[in-house]
């Protein structure tokens, strides 16, 4: 039996029930299990107090809450295995959690149970320059891994916005993307091997240190993006690339996003694959200008931020072609940075987009959808129409190079339940439209609990059934991250 108290838990409605529920949960979590958990990790690494649990009731996703019954921080894979065996035996939900920076409610314990924190497994095990790879425990931050690689003039290309805080294990579990997706791909393109603890307690090693290895089903890729529903990743081996000598940025303004979209096609047709190709729509430009006073063009309909890296001559060559392609498509103005400092300054516009938008209200819902690259402008126009229909403030920015958009809804108050309901209906339409245009409901944030209602529409009944069979093969008791992908 999986004991469940349903979703929610922190809302005002629940506040009176809260202490009572916590008490019930204590009863549900049998004392011998608690004793055993404590014996596995040591008393300091098992947390049970109401306040200690409350902070694990949410992650970076707004609106999703669920109280855990225990938070546990194991030191290594062996301890993880013992915890999972115990959880399977007693049918206790386990939610693996890295830094809790995901945006799909992937680490919210909706069914209570145990939150398994990977914070203590935070050692970089090796950087092997001759093999161009790194091996790290799951709780190492992506930034720390990249810094260790940089000491050997190597780099780890995936650069999700949260890389300073997000863990490499979490990045693998959600197959994180980032700004460099078009040129370098995403997390799955760099994972060579994984050590994974199965819910039944076995420890498996998939892949390894090899670029070429076709022995068996590609479990490494299956587990990459499985969002903690198939196993707990405890160790990661990733491929690295030589650090590019320089990196430069520029920006171009257009009258409309449609024009910017044509420029993107022109740039790629000219044989350039930029390392960065980001866009801001009109509403984002206004918000950023209002917030940061960067002197952005006030009457532009779209801003395209481009960048490339490599040796100096190659970057100069691709910048010439990019500038020419933008001019051909009627750019109002094109600005290119002369050095790294100027590049940073231009990137500010993109970096402060979310902060600028979040200041428009007190609840910011940052969403994620992808469409084929040529349909990007059309998608943004459809998003604008949907926002108008539901009377919500929605601005869109994202990755023009790979068709990945981040429509962002800002509401004045987090207590505006009617407004939240309208925003949710609007987003349902946005995801439907993305599918209609040949796209998907999430490009890089993940499914988690937030996108699960739309997953069937994207995958179809047969694939959903197969997903559930795969889930059962890995996790017969259904203890790992219930209520998420595979449920």
């Amino acid at each position, binding site marked *: 039996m999986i004991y469940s108290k349903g979703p929610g838990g*922190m809302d005002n409605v629940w506040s009176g029930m809260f202490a009572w529920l916590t008490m019930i949960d204590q009863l549900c979590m049998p004392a011998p299990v608690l004793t055993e958990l404590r014996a596995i990790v040591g008393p300091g690494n098992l947390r049970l*107090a*109401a306040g200690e649990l*409350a902070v694990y009731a949410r*992650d970076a996703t707004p609106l999703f809450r669920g109280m855990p019954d225990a938070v546990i921080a194991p030191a290594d894979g062996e301890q993880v295995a013992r915890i999972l065996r115990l959880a399977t035996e007693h049918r206790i939900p386990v939610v693996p959690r890295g830094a809790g920076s995901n945006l799909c409610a992937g680490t919210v314990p909706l069914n209570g149970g145990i939150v398994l924190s990977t*914070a203590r497994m935070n050692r970089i095990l090796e950087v092997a320059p001759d093999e161009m790879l790194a091996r790290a425990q799951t709780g190492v*931050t992506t930034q720390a891994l990249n810094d260790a690689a940089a000491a050997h003039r190597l780099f780890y290309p995936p650069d999700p916005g949260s890389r300073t805080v997000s863990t490499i294990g979490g990045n693998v579990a959600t197959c994180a993307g980032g700004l460099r997706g078009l040129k370098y791909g995403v997390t799955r393109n760099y994972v060579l091997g994984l050590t994974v603890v199965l819910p039944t307690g076995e420890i498996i090693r998939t892949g390894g240190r090899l670029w070429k290895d076709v022995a068996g089903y590609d479990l490494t890729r299956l587990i990459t993006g499985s969002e903690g529903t198939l196993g707990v990743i405890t160790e990661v081996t990733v491929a690295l690339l030589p650090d590019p000598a320089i990196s430069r940025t520029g920006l171009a303004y257009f009258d409309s996003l449609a024009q910017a979209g044509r420029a993107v096609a022109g740039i790629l047709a000219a044989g350039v694959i930029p390392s960065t190709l980001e866009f801001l729509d009109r509403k984002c430009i206004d918000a950023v200008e209002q917030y940061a006073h960067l002197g952005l063009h006030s009457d532009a309909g779209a801003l395209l931020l481009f960048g490339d890296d490599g040796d100096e001559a190659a970057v100069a060559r691709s910048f010439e072609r990019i500038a020419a392609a933008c001019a051909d498509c009627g750019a109002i103005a094109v600005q290119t940075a002369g050095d790294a400092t100027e590049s940073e300054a231009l990137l500010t516009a993109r970096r402060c987009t979310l902060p600028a938008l979040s200041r428009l209200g007190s609840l910011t819902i940052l969403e994620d959808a992808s469409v084929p690259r040529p349909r990007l402008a059309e998608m943004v126009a459809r998003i604008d129409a949907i926002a108008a229909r539901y009377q919500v403030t929605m601005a869109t920015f994202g990755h023009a190079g790979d068709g990945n958009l981040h429509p962002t809804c800002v509401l004045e108050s987090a207590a505006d339940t009617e407004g939240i309901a309208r925003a949710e209906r609007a987003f349902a339409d946005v995801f439907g439209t993305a599918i209609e245009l040949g796209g998907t409901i999430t490009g890089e944030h993940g499914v988690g609990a937030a996108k699960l209602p739309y997953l069937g529409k994207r995958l179809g009944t047969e694939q959903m059934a197969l997903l559930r069979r795969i889930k059962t093969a890995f996790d017969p008791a259904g203890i790992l991250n219930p209520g998420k992908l595979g449920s």
Partner: protein
Amino acid sequence: MTDAKVSQPGSIFDPDLLSRCISCGFCLPACPTYELTGDEASSPRGRITLMRALESGTLAADDPTLAEQASFCLGCRACEPVCPAGVQYGELLEQWRGYQWAGRRRPLVVRFLVIAAERAWAHRIAGRLRGAARTPASASGPSLMLGCFERTLFPEVSKSALALAPELAVPARQGCCGALHAHNGEPERGRELAKQLGAQLPGQIVSTAGGCAAYLAAVIGRDRVAELSEYLRDKPFGEVRIGDRRARVALQDSCHLRNGLGVWREPRALLNAIADYVELPGAGQCCGAAGTYALVRPRDSRRVLDPKLDQIEAAGIDYVVAVNPGCLRQLRQGLHRRKSKVRAVHIADLLRLAGADEPAGKPGHGTDTRVSPVP
């Protein structure tokens, strides 16, 4: 000491400030206590979740995790510069402590310090006995703020500051800036004291204590307050030499000066001019002094300090420079415990040692190339 009115859940926090956080977690790697524990509850995001639970009543007002985390937080505000949503964590912590540390719930040592800080006459007498700087009451110009504890603990700092900027007026009659109160459970009293000090010292106020400068500026206005290195930034200085070479020096930022006031380039530029400057890897991170923290939680304070002392000893420097008396005390004690050869000095003292812009090799202040040791 009178107890200010104790706020109740539902009215502890400014709702606008409390709703700012979007829970993205970007603050986690900046937080020294999260670094120690890896526990969400001791991260800024986790603490804001706790504040919200307290405010909404989802956690009992006397929940032990609330009390523990309100006290475990250093209050260094390293989370503020990295926050994309502009959360004013320092303000929120003041409001939180205003509740958690109201009246008898306040740690004893803090109660004692707050009472001591309010006794302006005692500071005046102690400052006089210890030989802190003073000028005739008739002196005009920008005022040097003495700081209630610096005046007694490190009287040479104000003398150095006056030697560096003789135009400063240093009236003996000046009170506390209120930062101590504000950070330790009496935010309203803190503001009152800051305003009083602002009225006592008209015009620009120069401070040798980064923490006091940041708090005073937040209450009476940024334009009226300058931290010493900010005030002296355009002045030429000589060199500090040890034997026949330039001294090697590193800086320990004052957290509130850096994270609250945004002043960190200025002391570096000055040190770079007078000596060979070495940037410590964790120069911008808290040393664990954190106002009353070193007294309230000595063990945690040392856990924060220890890696920093390792860095200081590994850097091959002669001096580590502080811009706040609390940091100076913390570093001196830590280095003394380790019997380290590295000296901790206040920037005012080191600048005075460098003297005015004279030919290199001629220290402007006697022949002694060492700053006097711990008083």
